[in-house]
């Protein structure tokens, strides 16, 4: 079985959990005897290719093989999503505009023929353009490679996945790692939402990383529940080593680690910190990470007059993250909405007891974590206090937690994904 997989990033150059998850899944698939062709917009060459073949989209020429450009574009015409949303035009005007648009598209495409497009592979201002270009290149890749099934990770690659499906007719699986609602709360970007919905509608199966995400997919995108399947993420601790650190301060340390954005609930952490500090003097709080709410959080801490006990580290890189865990006595993930959430697993692997919000996918798989509602700052403060002051509690959570995370293997998750592939291929033959 061979799968053509569209991703956006792959270790070592990653900015979020998506690349790590893709890496783990592909390795797991290979262990389950599935061959993986992994397409990404911009590869640097130092990716781990032991288990997958990486195709660098920046390296692909869009050839003239597709003799009928119009026909090709018919299939992938949606790539200019959103641009036809023009108010107050009558049907005649609209049809003229559409023809014009299509001609423009053909021109665009012809210009692209024989050329390579240099993707940044980042999440910059021309993201939409890159996403659309990626789909074009995907069509080319789909035509020139042999595979059985298509698998696309998150909205950035959905158009690429759909293009590949329309051209080859092979079954498409889209993987929902995070929905637009998880990223932006209620103020969603409708362009992104549309792409997500197109991807999921055209897909034969939608994989959600948790029941939480599955519910969002069904309720907020109107996707048929029958084709939405939950496959919980796993975690790969191969080669993981705990680091030893010397502490500069005698107090216990409670850590928040992640993007400082609405989705991660940093302000609930600050409010809980205030409550704990008032009653338990020997503690410090650390907020590690960067994000659009960072400045607001700093002001918030200052306003509560706890700045001498509450510290910000800025963005932490790989090794620093491990050190931060080594410093920590308690790890808190107060996410408002977290499709899965891998960092509590890393904390548990580093022998740190964790408190996670019930609004996280990872809460569905963890038993040895304390679970609170993200808004319930009293419960959060109380759990922090409990872990700090009752050694039996943290000892137990650490011991059992370690055992628990070590049992969450990607091979298991990949097995479930392979089952989905097999089912699709069997259905197709019928």
């Amino acid at each position, binding site marked *: 079985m061979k799968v053509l997989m569209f991703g956006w990033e792959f270790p070592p150059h990653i900015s979020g959990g998506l690349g790590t998850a893709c890496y783990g899944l592909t390795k797991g698939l290979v262990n389950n005897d599935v061959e993986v062709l992994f397409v990404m917009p911009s590869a640097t060459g130092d990716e781990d290719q032991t288990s997958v073949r990486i195709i660098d989209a920046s390296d692909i020429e869009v050839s003239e093989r597709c003799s009928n450009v119009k026909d090709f574009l018919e299939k992938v015409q949606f790539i200019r999503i959103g641009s036809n949303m023009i108010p107050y035009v009558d049907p005649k005007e609209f049809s003229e505009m559409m023809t014009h648009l299509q001609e423009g598209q053909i021109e665009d495409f012809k210009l692209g023929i024989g050329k390579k497009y240099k993707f940044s592979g980042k999440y910059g201002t021309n993201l939409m353009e890159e996403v659309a270009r990626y789909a074009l290149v995907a069509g080319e890749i789909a035509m020139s490679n042999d595979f059985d099934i298509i698998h696309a990770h998150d909205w950035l690659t959905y158009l690429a996945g759909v293009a590949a499906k329309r051209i080859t007719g092979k079954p498409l699986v889209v993987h929902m790692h995070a929905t637009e609602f998880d990223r932006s709360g209620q103020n969603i970007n409708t362009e992104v939402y549309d792409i997500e919905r197109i991807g999921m509608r055209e897909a034969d199966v939608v994989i959600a990383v948790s029941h939480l995400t599955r519910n969002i997919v069904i309720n907020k995108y109107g996707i048929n529940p029958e084709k939405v399947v939950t496959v919980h993420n796993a975690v790969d601790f191969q080669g993981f080593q705990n680091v030893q650190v010397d502490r500069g301060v005698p107090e216990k340390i409670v850590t928040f680690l992640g993007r400082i954005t609405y989705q991660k609930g940093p302000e609930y952490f600050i409010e809980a910190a205030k409550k704990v500090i008032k009653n338990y003097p020997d503690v410090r709080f650390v907020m590690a990470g960067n994000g659009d709410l960072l400045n607001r959080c700093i002001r918030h801490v200052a306003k509560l007059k706890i700045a001498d006990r509450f510290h910000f580290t800025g963005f932490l890189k790989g090794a620093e993250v491990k050190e931060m865990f080594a410093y920590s006595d308690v790890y808190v993930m107060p996410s408002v909405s977290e499709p899965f959430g891998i960092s509590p697993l890393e904390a548990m692997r580093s022998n740190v007891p964790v408190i996670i919000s019930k609004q996280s996918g990872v809460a569905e798989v963890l038993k040895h974590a304390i679970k609170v509602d993200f808004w319930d700052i009293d419960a959060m403060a*109380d759990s922090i206090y409990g872990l700090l002051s009752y050694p039996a509690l943290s000892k137990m959570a650490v011991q059992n937690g370690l055992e628990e995370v070590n049992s969450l293997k990607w091979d298991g998750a990949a097995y479930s994904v392979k089952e989905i592939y097999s089912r699709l291929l069997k259905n197709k033959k019928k």
Partner: protein
Amino acid sequence: MDKTICLYFQVHQPHRLRLYRFFDIGKSSYYFDDFANKTILRRVAERCYLPANRIIHELIVKYKGKFKVTYSITGSVIDQFEKFAPEVIESFKELAKTGCVEFLAETYSHSLSALISEEEFKEQVKLHDQKIFTLFGVKPTVFRNTELIYSDKIGAIVADMGYSAMLTEGAKHVLGWKSPNFLYTNALNPRLKLLLKNFNLSDDIAFRFSNHNWTNWPLTADKYAGWLAKALEKDDIVNIFMDYETFGEHQNISTGIFDFLKHLPAEIMKYKTIQFDTPSEICKKHQPVAPLHVPFPISWADEERDTSAWIGNELQNEAFAKLYSAESKVKNSGDTTLLSDFRKLQESDHFYYMCTKFFSDGAVHKYFNPYETPYEAFINYMNVVSDFLLRCDRAAQITGQSGGTIIAEDKSPVKKRTVKKVKP
């Protein structure tokens, strides 16, 4: 010789704790969730205690002294009956008047004190004895320990206190090839007789009665009486022990559990050789067959039939040790509120909520547990205990001053009692 069946029901409700945050420590010392306790007690009274007592009373009257039952009622639930449902006590008094009901002795607070403090254990048993005497006018002569917890040593203590017999679980790992359907004796003091629960026949009613997947469902009174008769072909006694809440609460009225109860005596009496008896009568009628060796404590809970549902994991051990570390301070203080809280905090239920075994097995554990996870249960309990220990320290200081004697307990390390190692 006559064959005997013994029906024994345990009546208990714990004092559930309120949501007690760490901000409350040192500020608020009221620990209990009166609303939940009252609501649950009223509910169980209406669904179980009152209707079940009514049926039992009717049966006793109907069979003119041939139908007998045995109860043990914890001090914890009696205290709550007095507050929230005094009519239940009245209906038990009615039952007591028939002379066909025996009340057993146990620890007042449904506590695990037998496992850690002989002194506290004896005090609680005495307290409970007095309470039963005041309410029902009889002094119990047979003992049942919390959760049927029993070991040779506990049995010896109970024998020393003057009880003639004790109830415990017919645990397979203790009995081996032996049958639970005979009278046994304590291994250290043969004067103490042992009645063992037949867990197969007891659980058929208590746990399996409404299970539609069970091959013997539906269980009818005549079918069940047949099983009893079969068990008694060779053996002497069948002891059917269960929670009283089985009737109407664990097994809902719609399962037909009350009809089953109504028809059971008649079906059993069809077998002429079988009689209903209470534990003290059984001890007079039957001869013990052998001593039973129980070096490590057993109980009636879970597959393991040991004490690991209450003290097995680190959370439970820690909570248990911390609570009992205050025993001498509480008693030296002479403070009755402190003592009363100490007793309520000893209820075994608090430790049961911290059990991690229900991750693997136990719809049963889930049913009885108001907390979502054992971690939550532990945090809440320890917050309460932290406040309680502060009060103990304060009380110890006060008594130290007023008595003129120096009690330096807050300086010298408190003598730590070790939790008795429980064999897994």
